[in-house]
């Protein structure tokens, strides 16, 4: 099944974003996208793989993330140093605008990259956790469509959570 014509030592794959930008990635990066894993491990005759749900802006970030993770894990450094390095990278990588974070989270879910999905979920949760409801609404543009009476009722229903 696998392509025997491939003679180069490093296989590359072409990923096409929603807005038509094509990215060239190495196999070590591509296999982290579980959603296309079967595709690339099987027949790779197609010219490029289309990722319909991800914009080029987000895909570039996803590739940066996978590339760093692939390089760190194969770098031959000890497990603890690699762990530390990934932690620092992840922290820095999560230092983005909330909307980008949300899109990264959706993309990680769609592309099925478990570690990135967990990372973005944890980061989003920490943004919600440290803020008041009003701040959370503002941060994510959530419109408060409760009437004053309704909001009061909800607060009363779970009064213990709002103390």
């Amino acid at each position, binding site marked *: 099944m696998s392509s025997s014509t491939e003679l180069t030592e490093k296989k590359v794959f072409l990923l096409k974003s929603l807005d038509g930008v094509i990215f060239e990635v190495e196999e070590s990066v591509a296999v982290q996208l579980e959603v296309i894993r079967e595709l690339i491990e099987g027949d790779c005759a197609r010219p490029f793989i289309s990722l319909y749900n991800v914009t080029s802006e987000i895909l570039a970030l996803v590739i940066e993330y996978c590339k760093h993770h692939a390089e760190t894990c194969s770098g031959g450094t000890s497990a603890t140093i690699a762990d530390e390095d990934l932690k620092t990278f992840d922290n820095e990588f999560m230092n983005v*605008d909330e909307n980008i974070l949300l899109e990264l989270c959706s993309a990680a879910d769609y592309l099925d990259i478990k570690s990135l999905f967990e990372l973005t979920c944890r980061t989003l*949760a920490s943004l919600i956790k440290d803020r008041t*409801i009003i701040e959370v609404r503002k941060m994510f543009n959530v419109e408060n469509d409760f009437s004053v009476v309704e909001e009061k009722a*909800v607060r009363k229903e779970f009064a213990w959570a709002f103390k």
Partner: protein
Amino acid sequence: MKTSRKSEADLISNLPSSIIENILGCLPLRDAVRTSILSREWRYKWVTCPYLVFDFWFDQMFLGNHKLETLVYTILKFHQGPLLKFALQAPDFQSSPDIDRWIDLLPNDNIQDFTLHISRGDNHRLPSQLFAFHQLRNLKLYKCAFDPPSTFRGFNKLVNLDLQDVVFAPETFGNFVSCCTSLERLRLMECSSLDCIEIDAPKLKFFEFHGVFRSISFKHSPLLAEVLISFSSMDFVREDRFSFDLIKSLSCLPALEDLHLQAYVLEGLAEYGAPKKLPVTLKTLKTLHLSDMYFEKIDEISCALCLIRSSPSLQKLEITAFTFDVVEAVAEFLRSQKSSDCSLTHLKTVNMQLFSGAESEMEFVKYLLASATALEEMAISPHAGNVSDGGESILNKLKQFPRASPRAEIVNSEKK
């Protein structure tokens, strides 16, 4: 650098529910419930969150005049969809009939993670419904009484079992463990009803025990690699064969690599060949940690040395010292040990913790340095209370000792 892009659209509310559930699952339950007030759409998003953890946020201090019992009940009634994790670990939580009613409300076909932490009062007798959670992977129980129904056939997906102050009906523990065939990690802390422990767990990799037992045997545990045993009382010493039987049981583990024991447990080995050679060896052991090593007692030191010699694959040795007085006889004994008796050919690192530089400790290190032919590092961590110059003079003294390994370095691990 912060990448920024302002948008007016509400991007979070429209995320698929599976993503929102995951985000809410990363929040403490209290914060997840608080999202109900974001907007109408958010009012009931939290009810499908697959994890319900009642932790310190459910302390009376935070709850004020709200009662935990009512809250748990309300939350369980609101909850919808699969529930993967349920944990009750609020501070000061006591046994009560409510617990059984809550367990009764849990959907038993998907719970993977269950924690019940009773912190004071009587142990809680677990209801039989719990034994129907056949998807359980992690089970943590504190202060419970455990008596599986006769029809129970084991949690065959259970990987992690953590029991603290759990009382078993007589003779049921061994049987229970042997029918949890996927078990990989087992922790038994202060479970007083366990007297003669029999462990038959084909997938077990990690075993930790703290408490008291009369005997332990591992029937079929071919993968068990890491064992930590510590005793909460010295009662077992009354039994003559205790130390020997313990080491003999451990020597039957074909994959044992990492062992942590209190040094005084070994004392009884003196009757069985120590300090010369034990009739059993720990062939596969790579890391040995002996804690509370009492450098004032010849029997203890000689038996510890004997165990070290009976571990031919040992690569790493960690000793936590426990020394008050200088006992000349111990130093004398150590001086009399011939390095050629030893088979420490694989030992690479030694870590001496709470080292006060007493003569017996110094002689012990001297002996190791003279015997371990492949030693790379002897790390000394000085006992801050007993050592004044940060260990400087001890280190200098140790550096004068002859080393069997030309590569061996002596370092102060506090100054690494």
